[in-house]
């Protein structure tokens, strides 16, 4: 029997209320996360991936409204908790590595002191000063920083070092889940690689579950076991990363993979995706991808396709997934 899920997102619907109307940012999204699992959510800007990340911590924007659905952590619905109880879970159970490591630190406090604050808030019984210092040193070593850096201010850190320190902060209270929202987006490729390898190593050593959120499908390929592909607020495909990359079933997933250049393999011809993502104030009827979909039929503009199981742990929301080519075209670029 498989272990029960640590985290379950169950038919989550979240909208933003704006002057112009309601933005359907997250629409009927379900997935679960097991202990020690690395899940990736990938999609373009505005697809809802960051809205989901923020919802998991209940740090959503003020104009966000949860219309329906649940987020369960060990069976407990986080959306039903009062704020003070939710605060106990933040950092302690679910921690977050934000995008934009530059802005996540308070510039006038030493980095070590900012981590100390999180430890003081969450550790019961409270740790002694010596224990805290010891713990911060160990965390810094774990993420590849010199422990002496804990006494420095954020501006004395390079971008990569700040992101490492953010990871140290996220790990500080032994969370069971880390949400990494574009953890390396602002970084150069060599530093990005170092941070990703570090995160992967720590995650495996500590047996933590992690949710990576990224627009970069190559990053997701590298670090996750399971991938969820989002389009316009909907989760359109979910499955084992290796399987989804080898045999994407949703037309959007197929086209996304077909249009991702790589430095390895033959120089393939890349297939551009026509059109642009829809405005979520007024999303298309039926399948939200149908206006851009080369496989769309009449039904797609009327009925919304449900998630359908197409393989072991592999689900797709498409009426015509059987029309999608089985593998990505390897046609060479002329």
């Amino acid at each position, binding site marked *: 029997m498989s272990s029960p899920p640590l985290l379950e997102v169950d038919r989550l619907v979240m909208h933003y209320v704006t002057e112009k109307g309601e933005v359907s940012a997250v629409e009927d999204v379900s997935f679960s996360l097991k202990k020690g699992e690395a899940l990736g959510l990938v999609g373009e800007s505005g697809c809802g991936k960051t809205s989901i990340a923020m919802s998991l911590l209940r740090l959503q924007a003020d104009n966000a409204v949860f219309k329906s659905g649940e987020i369960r952590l060990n069976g407990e619905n986080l959306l039903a908790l009062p704020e003070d109880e939710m605060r106990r879970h933040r950092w302690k159970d679910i921690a977050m590595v934000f995008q934009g490591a530059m802005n996540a630190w308070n510039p006038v406090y030493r980095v070590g002191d900012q981590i100390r604050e999180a430890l003081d808030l969450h550790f019961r019984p409270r740790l002694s000063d010596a224990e805290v210092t010891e713990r911060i040193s160990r965390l810094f070593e774990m993420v590849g920083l010199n422990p002496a850096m804990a006494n420095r201010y954020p501006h004395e850190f390079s971008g990569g070092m700040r992101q490492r320190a953010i990871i140290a902060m996220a790990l500080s209270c032994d969370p069971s889940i880390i949400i990494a929202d574009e953890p390396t987006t602002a970084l150069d490729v060599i530093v990005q690689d170092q941070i990703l390898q570090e995160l992967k190593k720590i995650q495996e050593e500590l047996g933590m579950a992690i949710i990576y959120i990224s627009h970069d499908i190559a990053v997701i390929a*590298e670090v996750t076991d399971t991938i969820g592909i989002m389009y316009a607020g909907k989760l359109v495909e979910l499955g084992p990363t290796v399987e989804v990359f080898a045999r994407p079933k949703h037309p959007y997933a197929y086209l996304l993979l077909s249009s991702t*250049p790589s430095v390895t393999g033959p120089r393939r011809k890349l297939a551009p995706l026509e059109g*642009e993502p829809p405005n979520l104030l007024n999303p298309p009827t039926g399948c939200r991808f149908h206006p851009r979909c080369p496989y769309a039929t009449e039904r797609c503009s009327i009925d919304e396709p449900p998630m359908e199981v197409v393989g072991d742990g592999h689900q797709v929301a498409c009426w015509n997934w059987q029309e999608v080519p089985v593998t990505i075209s390897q046609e060479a670029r002329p």
Partner: protein
Amino acid sequence: MSEPLVKVDQLTKLFPVSRGMFRRPVDFIHAVDGVSFEIAPGESLGLVGESGCGKTTTGRLLVKLMEPTSGQILMQDEGSLIDVAHIGSDDLRRFRRRVQMIFQDPYESMNPRRTVFETVSEPLAVQNIGSLREREDRVAQMLQLVGLTPPNTFLFRYPHELSGGQRQRVAIARALVLDPSFVVADEPTSMLDVSIRISIMELMLELADAFDVSYLYITHDLAVARYMCDRIAVMYLGKIVELGDTEEVLSNPLHPYTRALLSAVPVPDPTYRKPEVEIKGGITKAINPPSECRFIERCPWATDICHASEHPPLEDKGAGHFVACHLVDKGAG
């Protein structure tokens, strides 16, 4: 190889770093330091490297948005050679017809108070080309070419009414409206979403053929460079460390920095096992750099030769594969 369209020789740009009480510049960042390369007509050269390596500065020098500290940029113009650093004001206007730039951020590179027509036709107005009527026709034709169709629905829109991809199409139309022979494109797709990115890349490739234009394509993304460029040059702290045919450099990287960079690139294939990235330390700034190899502190292979010698010259190691490294043998290319 035919006569190069662009010939860059020992191009150098130093930026003063002001320090101390009187803010006298005592130190210099060697942003671009003795860079030489050629671009053939119709060729697309990729300039790749991490932030701060000098790729953007090189691009700006080439379109004369900045003056070099030293070195030479020669450009072919209808049979004659222009020395870009010493263009007189008369020739400058002609130079601007031949050379254009596409910027990274389509949200910042366009005047928000100008319509698409005004933005795209401005170069024609500056150059005094055509009547208003002819300009309208030309702009409509350009919009058609960049896929903003039907053109009359776009002509009088403002940038805020366009998506990022559409704005970049306008920027491309503007860059090509004077039929230039050389375009510097600085990360033209890095702000765009994946699904939009490929269509812009494809468009640029198509138009390169149609307009017979050469690109200097600046990017941090090696996979994008591979798709767009015939040859690539890899920069590290102001120096070109490796240059050659794209596929040759990517399949047979010879400089230790290129190898590290290449093995760090994420690959969209979960079954791919990446090689270890062999590099030491973190990136530094090229402030008054020592005379030895620029990469020496981060190079895991550096030997006594590297410590005892000057920065190695960019040498042909075989078949037009240039590398600046003491440790790479001739014939390795």
